[in-house]
């Protein structure tokens, strides 16, 4: 805990009074000069049910389960872990919250905890403790994890994406290095198209890859879905500028991106039909470990670049953000909290991140030094995904509206409509505004 406020102090003393039998939170912060500690004692005979998303890379699950086993042995808590396809976790968590029974701990996505904050355990002790111990949270992690100053979710990280590209194709198009600004990026894509090594970004209803790059595109131009008070402001000159840019960019794409779902760009890239796309580290990894010599030969030619930066000068990336939360209905709240904290500790987190080959970028600054990011220089750009990230539903408050607006693909559809020319940028922005207003109406 970074500091002790009055409330926490009361809690602590109450905990002390109640004794260790209730297993309360004991934390000491910087103020006392000692290293931050978190002392959570799981309830006797506690059993936990944990629900998490199904792994993207095998190493993730292997390492995760090994740490679960260590947790069980250390604390004598039996833990059952269920895996679900990643888009199914959100609805399940919501139902659990509503029904008041289900898994004790859920690793969900994005703003899941903000849709039923009153059903969740206060994880402030863990959030503050981890932040103090590991160099602080990246700002976006605090935005997702905290509500009204209280931690309701403990971020695990984000499945980050970069612009995966073929270095030789970029050079052949006359660029020494990957452009860092919007103008340069558009020029690169035009030159790539002329060389018949085009770019391609998903514009179908692709939950991950589609949302990720269109949010970047709109934000980079200064557009945003809502203002700080959740008023819909998507229909703005900045958005129109972004959509005009999208139209020019789309003209340089490989045909068929309107139909692309999440897996399409991976396939097209590995096959050599697309030379720039947005993706997680999985493409590189699949090439690196490929047994097909033709695919493997591509390994050295794959480059990763962070998303170009717009006029604001700040990165505007969106990645699949995942965090753990625990429910008040849990019979073993201390065990649940201890589990969440345990998995975030360096002894567990770093090996896990390594086993997942950097697929998940950390939310805590100290993990920047995890060797996984430097062992292969091609990993390095993924290190900064959470640092560079903005929350969806920016600049409004997270909650039901932000979740629903993204699930309905409003941003994706708007960019797709304008890019493909089926609507003018103005029409597309107006339609997005109307659709968003429905979700953001009070």
């Amino acid at each position, binding site marked *: 805990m970074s500091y002790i406020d009055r409330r926490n102090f009361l809690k602590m003393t109450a905990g002390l009074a109640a004794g260790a039998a209730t297993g309360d939170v004991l934390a000491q912060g910087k103020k006392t000069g000692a290293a931050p500690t978190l002392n959570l004692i799981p309830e006797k005979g506690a059993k936990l049910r944990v629900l998490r998303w199904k792994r993207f890379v095998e190493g993730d699950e292997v390492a995760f389960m090994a740490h679960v086993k260590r947790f069980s042995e250390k604390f004598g808590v039996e833990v059952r872990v269920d895996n679900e396809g990643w888009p199914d976790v959100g609805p399940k968590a919501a139902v659990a919250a509503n029904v008041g029974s289900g898994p004790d701990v859920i690793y969900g996505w994005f703003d899941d905890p903000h849709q039923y904050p009153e*059903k969740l355990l206060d994880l402030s002790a863990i959030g503050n403790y981890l932040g103090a111990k590991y160099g602080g949270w990246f700002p976006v992690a605090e935005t997702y994890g905290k509500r009204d100053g209280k931690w309701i979710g403990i971020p695990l990280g984000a499945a980050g994406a970069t612009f995966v590209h073929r270095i030789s194709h970029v050079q052949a198009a006359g660029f020494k290095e990957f452009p860092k600004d919007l103008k340069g990026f558009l020029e690169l894509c035009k030159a790539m198209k002329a060389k018949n090594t085009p770019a391609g970004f998903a514009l*179908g209803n692709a939950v991950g890859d589609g949302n990720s790059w269109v949010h970047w595109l709109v934000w980079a131009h200064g557009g945003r879905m809502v203002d700080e008070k959740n008023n819909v402001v998507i229909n703005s000159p900045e958005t129109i500028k972004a959509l005009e840019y999208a139209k020019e960019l789309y003209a340089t794409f490989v045909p068929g991106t309107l139909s692309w779902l999440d897996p399409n760009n991976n396939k097209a890239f590995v096959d050599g039909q697309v030379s720039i796309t947005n993706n997680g580290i999985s493409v590189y990894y699949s090439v690196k470990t490929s047994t097909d010599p033709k695919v493997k030969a591509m390994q050295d030619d794959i480059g990763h670049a962070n998303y170009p930066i717009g006029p604001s000068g700040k990165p505007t990336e969106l990645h699949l953000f995942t965090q753990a939360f625990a429910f008040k209905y849990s019979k073993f709240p201390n065990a649940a909290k201890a589990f969440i904290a345990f998995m975030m500790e360096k002894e567990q987190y770093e090996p896990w991140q390594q086993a997942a080959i950097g697929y998940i970028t950390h939310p805590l600054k100290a993990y920047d030094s995890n060797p996984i990011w430097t062992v292969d220089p091609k990993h390095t750009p993924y290190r900064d995904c959470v640092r560079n990230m903005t929350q969806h539903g920016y600049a409004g408050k997270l909650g039901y509206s932000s979740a629903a607006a993204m699930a309905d693909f409003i941003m994706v559809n708007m960019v797709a*409509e304008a890019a493909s020319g089926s609507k003018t940028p103005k029409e597309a922005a107006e339609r997005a505004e109307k659709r968003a207003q429905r979700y953001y109406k009070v």
Partner: protein
Amino acid sequence: MSLSRFFDNRNVLGLLFMLPAGALLLVFLTYPLGLGTWLGFTDAKIGRTGQWVGLDNFEYLFGDSVARLSLFNTLFYTVVASVFKFILGLWLALLLNRQLPFKSFVRAVVLLPFIVPTALSAIAFWWIYDTQFSVVSWVLVKMGIIDTYINFLGEPWLARMSTIIANIWRGVPFVAITLLAGLQTISPSLYEAASLDGASEWQKFWYVTLPMLTPIIAVVMTFSVLFTFTDFQLIYVLTRGGPLNSTHLMATLAFQRGIPGGALGEGAALAIAMVPFLLAAILFSYFGLQRRAWQQGGTDK
């Protein structure tokens, strides 16, 4: 004993035996349907019970361009796919009804598309329609007929037609096999009598086969229309409703809004909005195509 006599009563016994089935229907059919209908009139979100909002959801959906588009898509999808399924299915049934070599083998093969789980065959079609790896495009390019790959799922109208073709492929066997069963119930003596009267093959089909088959057609096509109208898996795998929502059916949009989007009430309202169309289809086949006097050579009053 009056109790034993009570249980000997046929009516009481009948009622008693029907109780489990009735309970099952109530719990697994009536209750979910009732709950779904109720939800459609509330603003329920996933994880939050809703308030009664009357027709709000329907009013909103009526004004929502995506929902209107999905209604159009659904009707278009159902009408085109059903017409083709009927024509192709009937044709196939007539062919299979003849003396063919390896008759039972051929009949079994015809059923294959229907047996394969939809999600699997949809994935096969996804590859067939892939913009980068389509085998159809590949063959046509190699043959020199076209020079760029066909954007099967990337152009709104092309995507609509592509999904419809996949649906037809899957639906034809069901129609064909059922109609085949119907064909085999037609007594050969009717055809003999027609032959004696000097009827041509066409006249035999028109005046004997078709009238005798109408009741089966009514049942098959009702089912076929219902399945097509409520199709979900195929679209979900192939396009998720894209490109530009041009293949979103009411069922897929209801799911998108209701579950990942969390707007349970709105999703339910979209789903209930399908019910009148389904009822109309059932009533049409019930009153329009059931056994009538004209099928026996008489005239309807």
